[in-house]
């Protein structure tokens, strides 16, 4: 069995005193990480059977990935929860996960205790200090197979219940190997972490160091609000590699970090030695990407595409020229370990150049949705084009096209899902939560792509403030509409259904 845990032991032997993770004022070496992972694995192996979920509620410190890996080493899988998420959301996740163990750091212990969790809460600081029992851990570790789950990550669900994407050890290694074959990190590289740990993009930042000996610098989320300081911080940390959401790149560019004033001075007083910038999550604004390209002319920029169900990203496109405002950037070709294909409305292969639903296959696919057999069966299906044996594919719901060179293009969605701040959001989930608010009769959620603003149009006696406050208790901040607009009457079609097109126009 070859897992990320084996890699950790190897890198800890090779670079024991090199930093795996750095946060503002401290660092964790590979040897220390390996030791803490064994401590956590011991704690978990004493308390839980392999192949069971362990929930984690903790801040963005380097103890958190040590806990993730410790849980994995004990043969279990981790379910990360964002402490900034509202209580109702955390309760929903705990309800889906139904774990016996919840690991919480001391800053979030009281929060963990307030969630009505019926299992046992273990303090993370205690878990990382446990005396390792290698024999006990080895016994649990031996239970792992390639297809054992390593994590379950939650995404927005159109039913109003978050969907837990369950991913195997092997799938995660496939993705990490796929991306690293393209970006070729080594021990001289420093990665700047943007993604929260409960988000798929974080697996690159957390685990590429273990594969390559690189170091990840944990950035504080508050640093992203002040873009010039953020860029200067990357420079001070010597960051060579960014694997960020498109929005993460757009914000500093939009707020002028790279703009030059009359005196010739750039917003950011110094720039990091970036070798490559990899982005994903949504279609980036070309003018803002161009600002990055102009500020970093020697840096390689890579556009990635892929859903959480395909474990990170499944395709990439190396942008080899300064982008123009009106061009459409390809999502490229599949990474190693991945294959992609299109299916038309009749589940046939579309003619060359025609559009179809993007489907993904290969060993890097997720195992399915945790505790949701129906949703799993609908999205992970047998390939209708392979009639000789069973081949599993994931239907992304994204519409795409392949050009004559074999490069894929993303053209939109089959359903109403949209991407906002790198997160994918089902508007139905926001509408469902809104419909429970007193004084709200009817509503429709619309995304304005250009302004990157979620709108909620509603009828009823509730004020927009009532609605915003109520939604903040239910949904993560990024899902709460920033424009909540009262309507005398909801536009309707002759059949009584909401006239979505008419409402969409109001958000433009």
């Amino acid at each position: 069995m070859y897992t990320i845990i084996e890699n950790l032991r190897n890198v800890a032997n090779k670079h024991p005193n090199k930093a795996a993770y750095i946060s503002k004022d401290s660092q964790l070496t590979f040897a220390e990480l390996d030791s803490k992972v064994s401590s956590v694995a011991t704690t978990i192996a004493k308390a839980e059977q392999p192949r069971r979920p362990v929930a984690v509620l903790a801040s963005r410190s380097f103890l958190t990935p040590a806990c993730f890996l410790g849980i994995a080493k004990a043969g279990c899988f981790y379910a990360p929860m964002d402490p900034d998420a509202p209580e109702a959301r955390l309760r929903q996740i705990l309800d889906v996960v139904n774990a016996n163990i919840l690991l919480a750091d001391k800053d979030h212990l009281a929060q963990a205790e307030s969630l009505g969790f019926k299992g046992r809460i273990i303090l993370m600081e205690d878990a990382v200090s446990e005396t390792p029992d290698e024999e006990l851990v080895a016994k649990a570790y031996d239970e792992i197979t390639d297809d054992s789950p390593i994590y379950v990550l939650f995404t927005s669900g159109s039913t109003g219940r978050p969907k837990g994407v369950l991913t195997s050890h092997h799938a995660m290694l496939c993705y990490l190997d796929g991306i690293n074959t393209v970006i070729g990190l080594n021990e001289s590289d420093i990665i700047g972490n943007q993604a929260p740990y409960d988000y798929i993009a974080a697996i690159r930042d957390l685990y590429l160091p273990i594969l390559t000996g690189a170091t990840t610098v944990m950035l504080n989320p508050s640093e992203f609000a002040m873009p010039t300081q953020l860029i200067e911080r990357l420079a001070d940390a010597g960051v060579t590699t960014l694997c960020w959401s498109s929005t993460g790149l757009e914000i500093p560019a939009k707020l002028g970090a790279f703009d030059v004033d009359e005196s010739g001075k750039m917003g950011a007083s110094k720039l990091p030695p970036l070798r490559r910038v990899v982005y994903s999550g949504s279609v980036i604004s070309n003018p803002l990407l161009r600002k990055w390209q102009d500020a970093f002319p020697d840096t390689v920029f890579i556009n990635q595409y892929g859903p959480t169900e395909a474990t990170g990203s499944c395709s990439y496109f190396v942008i080899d020229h300064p982008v123009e405002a009106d061009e459409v950037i390809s999502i490229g070709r599949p990474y190693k370990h991945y294959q992609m294909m299109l299916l038309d409305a009749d589940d046939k292969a579309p003619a060359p150049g025609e559009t179809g639903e993007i489907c993904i296959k290969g060993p890097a696919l997720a195992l399915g949705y945790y505790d949701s057999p129906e949703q799993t069966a609908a999205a992970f299906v047998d390939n209708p084009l392979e009639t000789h044996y069973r081949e599993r594919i994931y239907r992304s719901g994204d519409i795409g096209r392949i050009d004559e060179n074999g490069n894929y293009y993303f053209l939109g969605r089959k359903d109403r899902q949209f991407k906002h701040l790198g997160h994918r959001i089902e508007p139905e989930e926001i509408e469902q939560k809104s419909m429970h608010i007193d004084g709200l009769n009817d509503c429709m959620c619309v995304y304005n792509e250009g302004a990157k603003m979620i709108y909620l149009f509603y009828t009823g006696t509730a004020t927009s403030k009532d609605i915003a406050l109520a939604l903040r208790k239910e949904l993560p901040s990024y899902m709460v509409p920033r424009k909540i607009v009262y309507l005398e009457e909801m536009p309707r079609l002759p059949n009584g259904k909401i006239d979505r097109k008419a409402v969409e126009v109001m958000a433009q």
Partner: protein
Amino acid sequence: MNELMEILESMRPDIDFANETKLVTDRLLESFDIISLVTEIGDEFDVKVKPSDLVPENFDSVEAMWAMIERLQDDDF
């Protein structure tokens, strides 16, 4: 300052802007709020918030934001 308060309250009705003094430092305002805010402040008060103005000290409280806006308005003359 009332106009500024209105902008803030309509954007984030959940925040007690009158009393908070660490809006950015304590991450009450997120990066995306800052983008909306910079745009709206620019439109409403006819000022240009420069990258060098984007420091926590200028956004941690309503008073600090207002002081920045007044300073930027003076700069324009």
